[in-house]
């Protein structure tokens, strides 16, 4: 009767050549999921971990208790930021293809994840980004010229030429440095939040990692420490269905939602439509209030889709159907907010087209300015001496010696 167990190997619903199939995706109708008080008990919150918080319905109307009730002006700002992020991404991909920068990573289709969250938080709140949350910089007003200069490793590069493209940071805007090692920022955000609580400040921390990265130890550290100390932190897992070539089932998404791990550890967990600007805004606002008022950490799973390649080194056609992005059931975050605004009578196709053109021009101008500060091959170049700085706060003798040697021996 007992037949030997066999190794279970998760399979994505579709590979190249197959018809896209998102039958596995569990959704809830817009407005259907109740909104408990931010300080509600875990038992009341637990259902949110397996349902899907959605606000904008298929007719682009806002529905239900999670409506953030934003002004038309705020909504247009969100739309502008998302469009700017997309325009920026498109431009940077092009210049990478032209060999002007060494590498790039787009966030196409996931813009709401960063923009809505950043808008729902306070300026004092600290953000711990992943490499795919450039929208956080856009929403907090980082100048696209500065972001481009980082990608160019030029004389205005905030990283002084040390990092690959997209590893931005901004101390002034309280956006942490992106790490090349995935997920390390998760426990760091918890520690930052613990420090805020220790100091009696009411700022919260928020961090973003991909669903694939949630398999790293740092996920477990973050949720455990977050639960133990009730740290005021929002732990966002961006489930865009893919981790390079491996689909979310290989991170454990096949059996249960990622949000469900929250209640499993004794913290709040919410699964939200990551392509629904209003839902992401509302959930972030809820989690931030819970954190600020002593309710502790929340694990948020943002359900979205990585519409672009993993990076400029990747070719998704090798491992998933080309048509998958169009087949994604939760649509496009920009299109959905745009239609919602139009439905409200607060936006129009004409204004939209004008805005897109304006932002494209703005990004083009930014690029022209950025390359003026040098590219890796032309124009002003960074001083190689910078290579030895910031390893330590002060230059130690052995590095001073090596720097001198470098200057004497270089071609």
């Amino acid at each position, binding site marked *: 009767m007992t037949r030997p167990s066999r*190794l279970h*190997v998760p399979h994505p619903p579709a*590979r190249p050549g197959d018809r896209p199939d998102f039958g596995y995706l569990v959704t809830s109708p817009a407005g259907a999921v109740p909104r408990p008080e931010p300080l509600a008990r875990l038992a009341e919150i637990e259902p949110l971990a397996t349902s899907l918080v959605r606000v904008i319905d298929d007719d682009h109307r806002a529905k239900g208790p999670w409506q953030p009730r934003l002004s038309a002006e705020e909504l247009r700002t969100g739309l502008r930021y998302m469009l700017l992020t997309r325009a920026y991404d498109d431009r940077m991909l092009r210049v990478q293809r032209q060999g002007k920068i*060494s*590498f790039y990573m787009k966030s196409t289709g996931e813009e709401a994840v960063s923009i809505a969250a950043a808008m729902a938080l306070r300026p004092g709140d600290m953000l711990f980004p992943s490499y795919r949350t450039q929208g956080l910089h856009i929403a907090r007003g980082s100048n696209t010229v500065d972001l481009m200069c980082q990608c160019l*490793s030029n004389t205005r*590069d905030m*990283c002084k*030429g*040390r*990092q*690959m493209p997209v*590893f931005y940071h901004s101390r002034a805007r309280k956006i942490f440095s992106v*790490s*090349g*090692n*995935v997920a390390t920022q998760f426990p760091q955000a918890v520690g930052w939040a613990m420090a805020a609580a220790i100091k009696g400040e009411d700022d919260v921390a928020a961090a973003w990692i991909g669903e*694939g*990265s949630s*398999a*790293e*130890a740092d996920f477990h550290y973050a949720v455990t420490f977050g639960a133990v100390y009730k740290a005021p932190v929002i732990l966002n897992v961006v489930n865009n269905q893919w*981790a*390079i*070539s*491996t689909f979310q089932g*290989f*991170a*454990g998404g096949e059996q249960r939602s990622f949000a469900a791990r929250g209640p499993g550890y004794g913290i709040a967990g919410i699964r939200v439509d990551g392509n629904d600007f209003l839902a992401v805004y509302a959930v972030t606002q809820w989690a931030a209030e819970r954190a600020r008022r002593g309710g502790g950490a929340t694990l948020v799973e943002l359900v979205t889709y990585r519409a672009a390649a993993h990076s400029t*080194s*990747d070719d998704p056609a*090798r*491992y998933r159907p080309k048509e998958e992005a169009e087949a994604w059931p939760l649509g496009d975050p920009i299109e959905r907010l745009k239609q919602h605004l139009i439905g409200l009578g607060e936006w129009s196709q004409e204004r939209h087209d004008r805005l897109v053109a304006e932002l494209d021009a703005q990004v083009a101008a930014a690029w022209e300015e950025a390359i003026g500060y040098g590219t*890796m091959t032309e124009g002003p170049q*960074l001083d*190689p001496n*910078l*290579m*030895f700085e910031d*390893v330590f706060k002060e230059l130690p003798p*052995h*590095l001073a010696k*090596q720097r001198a040697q*470098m200057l004497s*021996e*270089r*071609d």
Partner: protein
Amino acid sequence: MAQMNIVQALNSAMDVMLGRDPSVIIMGEDVGYFGGVFRATDGLQKKYGEHRVLDTPIAEGGIVGTAVGMGVNGLRPVVEIQFADYIYPAVDQIISECARLRYRSGGDFWAPITIRAPCGGGIRGGQTHSQSPEGIFTHVAGLKVVMPSNPYDAKGLLISAIQDDDPVVFFEPKRIYNGPFDGDHDKPAVPWRTHPKGEVPEGYYTVPLGKAEIVRPGDEVTVLTYGTMVHVAAAAVREQQVDAEIIDVRSFIPLDVDTICESVKRTGRCVIVHEATRFSGFGAELCATVQEECFWTLEAPIERVCGWDTPYPHAFEWEYFPGQKRIRAALRRVMEAGR
């Protein structure tokens, strides 16, 4: 015989071993359906099935931890760490478990694991896609550690590593995956086709662990190097017109002290070249060993030409890289010393 680059040679080594030994399995991030971000496992899952070539969660520590258990249960896992820069989450399972298991269990348990890790820079990878952390692992009792410098050795050493009953950390200099690189990044890339070591048998063969190789015999000075730097050093020696003996160390643990010291005793001079940072890098152990064994024949201080003691920068890659110019300067100093 066939023409292979290093990626193809590695692929062929795993193919051969999957075919010969049912206990061999491949696991790692994106190694299955996709065939690996560097294509090293391309086609293997299709050929040997999903139970022999496994995609894994993104958790280096979990990959090595489960591989240890598989090894204890009779399998021979070959693990890919996508970049050597990402091996750190697995360090506890590698050092405390893989390396110690046989010893702590009185020889009753062991895990014959091979851990592949692409390393090195010169690919615009910045500080988290360019590291050469081999030095750290050479300080761990119970690990074998190797790094090939060409397709022939890559396949032969990987087969030896997979067959070995001790854990082996196998570093792959990714800058030379597709062709030898002499350090001049302005020159067009050269394919392995143009290099004798690009000739690789299609079938089974081994290159033993623990043996260094003299890639250029010479009498005036011994150059100890490995990985990408073998080719850079060779170019520098050509330019410098010095009769240097270039030794590709290849195997760090066990280390071929005999070949190394026989050479230095003959030449009386030694330059050590690696891409990893200098301070406490593997070059320090090479220098200390040579100094201890060859002291009385040394005519000049042993010099180390290494990466600077900073993270690997994105913009200053070629100021960082220990290129021909720096190697030649060291050769000059060592040749002139005491004259």
